[in-house]
């Protein structure tokens, strides 16, 4: 026994000791990487709030939420976020009018009608559509879609919310299609077979059995789409004009929250100026809006989730 106490650690164990220490260090490093996600979230909240606080010392929260004029560059400054929110909501609404029907039809078709081969060919195409950069979609909206719309409706101005809204809709179709399709494919085969055994057609099964069963996932897809559309920047910055305008009329030009941030960032920024702080207040509003939609989406999915 005494002999053992005298020897320090046997070479084999020493190696193990080093090995164990190394293991712990690595585990700690990995843990830090994992925690980085939490740091980013906290940093986002901290930066937005800390820069927005001085802004709200200048502008009361009441004015911010109820004023309908946004004129940070005029001599009489108004900071009514509603002028930007109206643009955001209008373009989002148009995008949803396009994306919800198209996305749902695509999802039902891919999940219930398409053969295996068709599905395997179509899904990569949808993925490619997701990969198209938004600045390219912006060009598409300004140079192709708006001129086309002007042929139908000649009074349309070059910058309007209709064109970018439609293009944004096309952009989010694949998001809706892929999430909704996953939800539909998760419905067990037995439910389809039951429906077919009763003599229902594919379409009846899709509409009356599969859709209700997958409704939580489908609604979650819609809400994901809303949150994408609300945060979309380049399409509206390029094609909707950047003039804040309290209107819900899609043929007028308007700024959204995101395009306002871009237009300020393109100019020279005075750090500490109220113009600089206003983009953080706008960003905070945007974050709260998207967060709200994400939470609602999560809650819907939880509440209506069918357990098989």
């Amino acid at each position: 026994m005494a002999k053992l106490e005298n020897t320090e650690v046997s070479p084999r164990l020493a190696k193990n000791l080093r090995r164990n220490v190394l293991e712990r260090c690595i585990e700690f490093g990995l843990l830090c990487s994992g925690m980085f996600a939490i740091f980013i979230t906290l940093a986002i909240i901290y930066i937005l709030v800390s820069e927005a606080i001085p802004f709200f010392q200048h502008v009361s929260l009441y004015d911010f939420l109820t004023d309908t004029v946004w004129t940070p560059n005029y001599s009489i400054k108004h900071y009514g976020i509603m002028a930007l929110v109206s643009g955001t909501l209008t373009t989002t609404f148009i995008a949803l009018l396009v994306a919800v029907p198209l996305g749902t039809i695509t999802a039902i078709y891919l999940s219930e009608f398409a053969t295996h081969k068709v599905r395997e060919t179509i899904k990569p195409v949808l993925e490619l559509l997701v990969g198209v950069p938004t600045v390219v979609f912006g060009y598409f909206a300004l140079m192709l879609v708006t001129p086309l719309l002007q042929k139908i409706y000649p009074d349309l101005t070059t910058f309007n919310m209709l064109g970018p809204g439609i293009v944004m809709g096309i952009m989010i179709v694949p998001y809706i299609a892929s999430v909704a399709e996953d939800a539909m494919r998760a419905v067990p085969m037995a439910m389809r077979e039951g429906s077919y055994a009763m003599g229902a057609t594919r379409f009846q099964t899709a509409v009356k059995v599969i859709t209700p069963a997958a409704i939580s996932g489908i609604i979650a897809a819609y809400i994901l789409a809303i949150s994408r559309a609300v945060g979309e920047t380049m399409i509206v910055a390029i094609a909707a004009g950047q003039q804040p305008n309290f209107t819900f009329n899609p043929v007028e030009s308007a700024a959204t929250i995101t395009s306002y941030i871009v237009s300020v960032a393109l100019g020279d920024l005075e750090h500490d100026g109220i113009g600089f702080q206003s983009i953080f207040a706008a960003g905070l509003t945007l974050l709260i809006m998207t967060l709200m939609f994400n939470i609602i989406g999560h809650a819907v999915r939880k509440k209506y989730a069918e357990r098989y």
Partner: protein
Amino acid sequence: MANDKKVDIENNLTLIRSLIAKHKRHDHIFAGVGMFVIISLTITLLVLFLDLVFDGYPRFNLDFLTNFPSRRATAAGILSAWVGSSLVLIVTFFAAVPLGIAAGVYLEEYAKKNWFSDLIEINVTNLAGVPSIIYGLLALGLFVYGFGLGQTILTAGLTLALLMLPIVIVATREAIRAIPIHIREAAYAVGATKWQVSLHHVIQYSYGGILTGVIIGMARAIGETAPVITIGALTFIAFLPPSPVGLEPPFINFEWLEAGFTVLPIQMFNWISRPQMAFHVNAAATGAIIILLTLLMNGLAIKIRYNIRKKIKW
């Protein structure tokens, strides 16, 4: 009486038959509509691409790649933009990939199922849903002014790395989850430590899936515009950052990290915003290059994933 009943049944039969025919018709109509929608989407993607190619056709020559932006549209090129994009992507790659893989490995292999790992998971999902421009604001407040990094390539690369991180984490986790437990058990049985199992087996075998995520993330980073504008990237750059590799020792320098820069999508945005049509041609040509790059990268990612699915049978 019996005759009446027969007529009734026959009436019913025709009724049922017409009903069945109607429902079958609905089936066919919907199949037609579905096919039509999908074909229209595909055509939209094609039109989008071809429109850019046709509009930008006059600029497809070597000068466009080797010239700096200029006041004259025909003499302007995208040299500073593509060099800027490449350098920014190098920073993004080296920041996001190791961190993303490490986080993915931690969540799948190390983390115990408790409130803490749930918290990390919720954060990762949420970060994927945060609009990209918010990351731009974060970078503006934190990197540009908080850390005093300024409006440099380093800042832009780190900003895009934040955007890419959730994509890499999710891809890593999915790839790791596909590896069966007995691979790990075999490694443990011959005395490997947890890290050895993770590094030599788990990460090795999920390589393809991780690569797919990395490529998709990089493709997204190339086209990402809003956050880079928000941190204040310049739109008119007529110089190149210092070269990262030199001819004299130590051969590598890091001065380029602190250089001002522009990237391809910002150059395109700048040209679209000008009223002159001649600049719109430049914008279209730049757009064609961006979309070609992203389509190629996404296509490659899809191909890799397809090959993995076909090849690997555990």
